[in-house]
């Protein structure tokens, strides 16, 4: 049982928001000690695994080009493309953003973000669509549109990223399984991630369609009430 102390340290450390790298290292070292490894063996295990898993951090090689593209307005071009979307309802704005975000993630483009896209673009566009359709949009509806807009970013990001062959998650799966004696390749894992990406899009589509319907019902009821 005492060997589980490392798991406990990871849970407690992450829950308390302590320094992530420090927590992981302390958990590893303590686990090694209670598991009967010597300090030398712990350092050797740590160093060997760190070196064989260097490929997980290979994305560093892509940072200069992305940085230069950002310098020349990559985000601005993407924002313009999203702004040009003509969608009639709040739900459709959010669904279209989700699929764009998901495709970008599948191509390893970090072109999303709540700060960069949801707050300045997607939420105002979804709200705008609702205002065109229903004239008056109450505070509670605005709150719901905010929640669903932010969710669209997370859905696209989470379920799209592993389609990219060298995504952090894909390489983590390959590396962790290899440490446990199971051999898989990054190509296999990224291909196996496609169905969930498609299903996540369908789930988003359904949620936003239901949301549009709910909005129409609720605001129609409100308008009828106001007229009486």
């Amino acid at each position, binding site marked *: 049982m005492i060997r589980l102390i490392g798991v406990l340290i990871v849970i407690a450390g992450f829950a308390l928001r302590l320094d992530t790298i420090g927590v992981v290292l302390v958990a590893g070292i303590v686990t090694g000690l209670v598991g009967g490894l010597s300090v030398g063996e712990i350092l050797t295990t740590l160093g060997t695994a760190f070196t064989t898993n260097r490929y997980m951090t290979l994305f560093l090689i892509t940072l200069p080009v992305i940085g230069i593209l950002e310098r020349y307005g990559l985000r601005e071009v993407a924002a313009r493309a999203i702004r040009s979307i003509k969608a009639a309802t709040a739900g459709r704005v959010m669904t279209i953003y989700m699929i764009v975000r998901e495709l970008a993630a599948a191509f390893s483009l970090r072109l999303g973000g709540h700060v960069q896209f949801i707050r300045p673009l997607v939420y105002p566009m979804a709200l705008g669509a609702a205002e065109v359709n229903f004239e008056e949009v109450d505070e509670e509806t605005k709150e719901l549109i905010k929640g669903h807009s932010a969710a669209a970013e997370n859905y696209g990001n989470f379920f799209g990223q592993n389609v990219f062959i060298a995504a952090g998650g894909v390489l983590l799966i390959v590396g962790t399984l290899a440490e446990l004696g199971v051999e898989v390749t990054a*190509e296999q894992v990224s291909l196996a991630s496609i169905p969930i990406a498609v299903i996540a899009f369908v789930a988003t589509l359904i949620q936003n369609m239901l949301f549009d319907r709910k909005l129409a019902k609720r605001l129609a009821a409100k308008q009828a009430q106001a007229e009486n």
Partner: protein
Amino acid sequence: MVNTILEIMYVLCGLVCLATAYYSYVDTELKTRYGTVAFWVLLAFTFVAGPHVPPAIIGAVVVLMGVLTATKQVNIASLMNSTDAFREEHSLKLGNQLFIPALTIAVVAFIVGQFTDLGGLVGLGFGAIIATIIAMVMTKASVKYIPYDGSRLLQQVGAVAILPQLLAALGALFAAAGVGQVIAEGISGILPQGNILAGVIAYCVGMALFTMIMGNAFAAFAVITAGIGIPFVYSQGANPWIAGALALTAGYCGTLMTPMAANFNIVPAAILETKNRNRVIISQVPVAIAMLIVHIILMYFWAF
């Protein structure tokens, strides 16, 4: 051949780290600049020297890097993006062709991974190099921006860039200490032996729950795969790449439902000024639960 090419690419990664160390060093405003410089130099060392020195030395270097981050010695130097006006002007001039280099990385990585024996990682490196060349020709940017903007983005990612690598190392230590066996023994008391469906449910739900507690699916993957995945799913004959891919995204279903993943759920609520700080989570819960059920069904029928 593949290994030689990869080693060259790791040297390039090391150079990005060294550039980051340099720009931290020249930033005299940065209070913790010596700690920050030390961190990036040490990381560069592990990239370049990794296979050429005794592993224990790399282990010690990694511990030293942990001491630096735990004592808050690693911080962000001020590297500037171009001005709003500059970006606006050039984004209008260059337009959608700015996407070409960005897409090149993924397309080359896919083609090399799929149609040659070199693998996707070498493809990623080739893609990055070709994309950089295209971008330089297209923008006519000064060459100094290659290290500068690379460092700028690496600083934004920060020290946690090494987290996946570190978690894999944690997994190795867990394996060496037999943590997986202990969890497996504990769970085997509850889980019916040899029941594939029970194993699949325990693996997917375990990933989601652990991710909710820790706020981090990567960390959960190392622990839950060793403790539940290996004895109850992989050892029963699951297709490992399908089960692995699904397990991690099952964890992401947990990410959608936890305030512990603050940067995805709580910070956006604050940015959007919602009345309820859990608004984003509330929106996500129905989809997250539906997706988790889909994961269980898919793993049960597709991986076996």
